[in-house]
């Protein structure tokens, strides 16, 4: 317990003392305000925008959730840059302890972020239980991003490049809503595809559970694969 408190306090200090990370932390708040106040404003001007509310929400929630993945991965990249990772590797803890702390840290914040977005944005609200379930799945994007960025980026400059790249990849499954054939499922290799469609189904469909369950399996498989890569490349012991 003492360790968890120390790790959390230290991580929070690192975030508040770093301009980039503070900006990452503010982004979800700005996004929520944007969706809550700007989107309805646009919709009163252009009523046809209402059609896109679900799509805006599924993407805005993802964008909110992943920010905490980036925060967590940038903390690890700092530890790589400053060589503190070497010191962590010689602490009397198992590698899993450290990895899971960072992943759970990211996922908890990410859950809170996605849930706030869905609950407070005021548009495309799927009801409290769907909001909860969708936030759970959005929260899984954070560990995924933490692992991708901290395993494959060697420093924060590369980390920034990943940030832009991953953002773009996240946008891609949105295209599946414009494709009306089996080909849309090709986007299923990007895990958020399933979350986007779960959201869509929660608002206007009957297949929520199908997409949600397949999605959960896809996330867990990808995360498990990435954890083993992280252990091989970053925290080998």
């Amino acid at each position: 317990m003492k360790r968890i408190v120390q790790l959390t306090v230290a991580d929070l200090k690192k975030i508040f003392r770093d301009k980039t990370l503070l900006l990452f932390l503010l982004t979800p708040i700005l996004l929520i305000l944007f969706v809550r106040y700007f989107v309805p404003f646009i919709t009163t001007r252009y009523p046809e925008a209402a059609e896109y509310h679900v799509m805006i929400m599924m993407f805005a929630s993802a964008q909110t959730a992943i920010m905490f993945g980036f925060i967590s991965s940038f903390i690890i990249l700092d530890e790589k840059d400053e060589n503190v990772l070497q010191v962590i590797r010689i602490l009397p803890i198992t590698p899993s302890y450290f990895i899971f702390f960072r992943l759970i840290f990211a996922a908890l914040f990410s859950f809170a972020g996605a849930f706030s977005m869905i609950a407070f944005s005021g548009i495309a609200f799927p009801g409290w239980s769907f909001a909860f379930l969708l936030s759970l799945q959005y929260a899984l994007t954070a560990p995924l991003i933490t692992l991708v960025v901290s395993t494959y980026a060697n420093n924060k400059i590369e980390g920034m490049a990943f940030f832009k790249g991953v953002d773009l990849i996240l946008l891609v499954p949105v295209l599946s809503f414009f494709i009306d054939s089996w080909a849309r499922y090709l986007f299923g290799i990007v895990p958020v595809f399933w979350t986007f469609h779960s959201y869509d189904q929660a608002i206007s469909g009957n297949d929520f559970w199908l997409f949600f369950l397949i999605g959960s399996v896809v996330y867990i498989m990808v995360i498990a694969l990435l954890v083993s890569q992280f252990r091989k490349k970053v925290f080998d012991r």
Partner: protein
Amino acid sequence: MIDVKDLEYIYAGTAKTALNRINFNIDCGEVFGFLGPSGSGKSTTQKILFRLLSGYNGSAKIDGVEVNQWGKKLYEKIGVGFELPNHYLKLTALENLNFFKAFYSRSKSPMDLLAMVGLEKDANKKVGDYSKGMKMRLNFVRAIMHDPEILFLDEPTSGLDPVNSRIVKDLILEQKKQGKTIFITTHEMHDADELCDRVAFIADGSIMALDKPQNLKLKGSKRMVEVRLKNDHNLYEFSLDELGKNRVFSALIERSEIETIHSKEATLDDIFIQITGKTLS
């Protein structure tokens, strides 16, 4: 305490062997040193012992257990002072130590540790604003914070000015007095000479000699004395054997005033070159 047999290491993606079947053992309470130039394999050996590198050939045991069989308990037993500073630069020195302290079952007080190396006034300064020497002192106290039985110190005095180097060396001797087993690497012959019970010469991944510093020096020393006289450019050399009975010698020092007189004892540097054919720096 530490037993290394035929240890061989090749970094992935390189063709050269970084360590070439090296053998040594370190006894309990001993200060053991690796003296060698840059790139000779000092850090590689230590990193294998505390498991930052895996996939070695041969055997490396701590307390009779192969290092790759040790779990997290190993890290309560050993302390590591890294070659380069590695701290959270955005946290203060005190915050850094408090953070690492949380992971150990016992630990000295962070403020006391900082005071040991003269950093108490800078305890609340961000480590990012520390000089290299300050960071290295912080490295050292972090290594000893949990009172480990075995200390690995990779070039503990590198980058330190003479005053701080003295402080760190005294702290190392203090650890030795407490019965700690210490494995030091260095390319400073004076450090090896002063601190180590036994020294291994390492060059190109091979151990070329291993003995007490005095023995190593004696092996390469010429038993000669060299005399320089005032107002005389010549150097006079005499054998140390039966010097008292040497008439030429007594006549010489009777006749003229001595400017300098030295026995030609070799330094570890000299011996290192003789044995390995390489210089230390």
